[in-house]
């Protein structure tokens, strides 16, 4: 068999170069640095370092603080993902049924999308301020002995509330466009086949939204893992007693506050592997059940 050889031109490489350069400089290089650093132990002033093999890793994984952060991250991510998806889906379904003033309603629901996580955190911080915070006052007024500075559950509640609030609008937009992508006649056919609107939702609408839901789940888990850093940093800062410290926040704390470059690098490498495993699971097992 003869192979056809085309003239190779360098132009295509030129076109992809900017993207490749960005990936190498901002992603691959730091990742490689992190892997390298995770094998080193540095003194507190950064003057000397020593190759310690996997000691940073064993110190990390077997420390109770890391395990606590790991546990909190799992619970936090699960709750944030499910709550923000659930609330957004409910709002989208209702918004889709609204006929009058629909665009106003939708715009209002999308607003929070424009707010950066640290800003959302600052706003939450104000609302839960023990002196002037309305929500703080409200929680205590309705009978809770609410104090997120002391109680780990209350602190968890605050960060989850803000994270969910911030994320609902993004999910809402995607769910709404997903709902509007379902042909009207399919809904009408379902109306003629099934009398119960709840049952129609679970047997027709929800399965048809599965691709959107799957995509949003991936996005939301990533959000809960990484982007909520800004919210935690501006509200609880991981307190009380590390009860609201996520893995990412702990990487930051140990690396930049604690100056333990090696330990924090080891943690970020572990985090990287965790996300890798999570992504594989998502695409291997859940995507199979999704009908495009």
């Amino acid at each position, binding site marked *: 068999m003869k192979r056809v050889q085309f003239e190779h031109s360098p132009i295509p490489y030129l076109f992809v170069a900017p993207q490749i350069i960005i990936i190498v400089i901002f992603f691959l290089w730091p990742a490689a640095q992190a892997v390298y650093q995770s094998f080193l132990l540095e003194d507190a002033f950064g003057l000397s370092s020593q190759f310690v093999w996997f000691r940073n890793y064993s110190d990390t994984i077997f420390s109770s603080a890391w395990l606590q952060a790991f546990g909190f991250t799992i619970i936090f991510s699960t709750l944030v993902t499910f709550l923000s998806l659930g609330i957004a889906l409910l709002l989208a379904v209702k918004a889709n049924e609204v006929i009058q003033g629909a665009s106003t309603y939708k715009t209002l629901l999308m607003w929070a999308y424009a707010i950066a996580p640290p800003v959302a955190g600052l706003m939450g911080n104000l609302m839960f301020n023990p002196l002037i915070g309305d929500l703080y006052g409200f929680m205590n007024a309705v009978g809770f002995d609410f104090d997120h500075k002391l109680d780990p559950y209350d602190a968890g509640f605050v960060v989850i509330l803000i994270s969910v609030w911030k994320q609902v609008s993004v999910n809402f937009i995607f769910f709404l466009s997903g709902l509007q992508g379902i042909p009207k*006649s399919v809904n*009408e*056919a379902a*109306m*003629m086949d099934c009398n119960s609107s709840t*049952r129609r939702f679970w047997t027709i609408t929800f399965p048809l939204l599965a691709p959107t839901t799957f995509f949003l789940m991936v996005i939301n888990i990533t959000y809960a893992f990484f982007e909520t850093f800004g919210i935690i940093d501006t509200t609880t800062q991981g307190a009380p007693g590390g009860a609201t410290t996520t893995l990412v926040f702990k990487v930051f704390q140990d690396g930049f506050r604690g100056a333990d470059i090696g330990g924090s690098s080891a943690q970020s490498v572990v985090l990287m592997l965790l996300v890798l495993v999570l992504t594989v699971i998502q695409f291997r097992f859940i995507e199979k059940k999704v009908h495009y």
Partner: protein
Amino acid sequence: MSGVQLKSVRKTYPNGAEAIRGVDMDIKSGEMIVFVGPSGCGKSTLLRMVAGLESISSGDISIGDRVINDVSPSERDVAMVFQNYALYPHMSVRGNMSYGLKNRKMDKAEIDKRVNDAATMLKIDQFLDRQPNQLSGGQRQRVAMGRAIVRDPQVFLFDEPLSNLDAKLRVQMRIEIKRLQRRMNVTSIYVTHDQTEAMTLADRLAVINDGRVEQMGAPMDLYNDPKTLFVASFIGAPQINLIPVRFDGIALSNGNLSLPGFKDLPKDADLVLGVRPDVLVETPDGQFEMRVDLVEQHGGENLVYGALTGATNEEGEDLELCLKASKETLPELDGKLTLGFDPATAFVFRKDTGERLI
């Protein structure tokens, strides 16, 4: 089995637009009724009101003896076939067909039996485990019909079900729908804008225009005896020739054209003469002359299009005329043909009201 009654049914949208302006209709049990009309005339709206997908502003719709105005679509005992099939994309063919039955808590063995019977009847039994996206357009259409058949409803509703199919398949499915309806003897309402489909499928046709039923009757009755200008111009392909004329007491005239043989017509009104292309004949002593512009050869027959000489429409342009002729008739382009017709086969309408006078 039961018929469908519509009593002064109206549909007014919240913005004041009137889609249906009072429709009365009595559809007998087992009858196939076709709603036909131009797009936007309200025919689909009327069907969707029977289905329960549009609310009824006033009037009553009943199936059998039961008024169904406030009954939910799934409890009206009607099944609908949609234009774009509206199959559930995430369900297999079997799932699509059995979904409605499962929701009615029907016995599993009975569901299987009905699905298998319908699939055999529609020749889709080998596709039962496929997804809709693995089927061709014609097969999807069959699945959509199967989904309606298994329900064993009192009324079938078809909303332009063939308009997404190619021409050949459309003819094939048209015959199949007719055969199926005969066999199952279920009251059916079929909406279409295609007048061939309407003529061939209907036991009775309802020509709908601007939210009203212009005329209802057997297809050939509507063709031979249209009550209005609209019905005459809508039914029949190629379209009826319409010539604006006035009556001077002796003959119908337009420009140099003078057509005797008519009497008892108002002298002070604008009239329209309607002559079907197939009653026009080429004859030396005909009433008018046509300049041939175009000949369409359809195989079995030829359609000759041209301009009527001597007469003009309101804009002062030549009047278009169509003649249905045998395949041997091949006039030269720009040549003249002398045409005639028997005045007894022509219609005369009032231009302003559209009412037929002769």
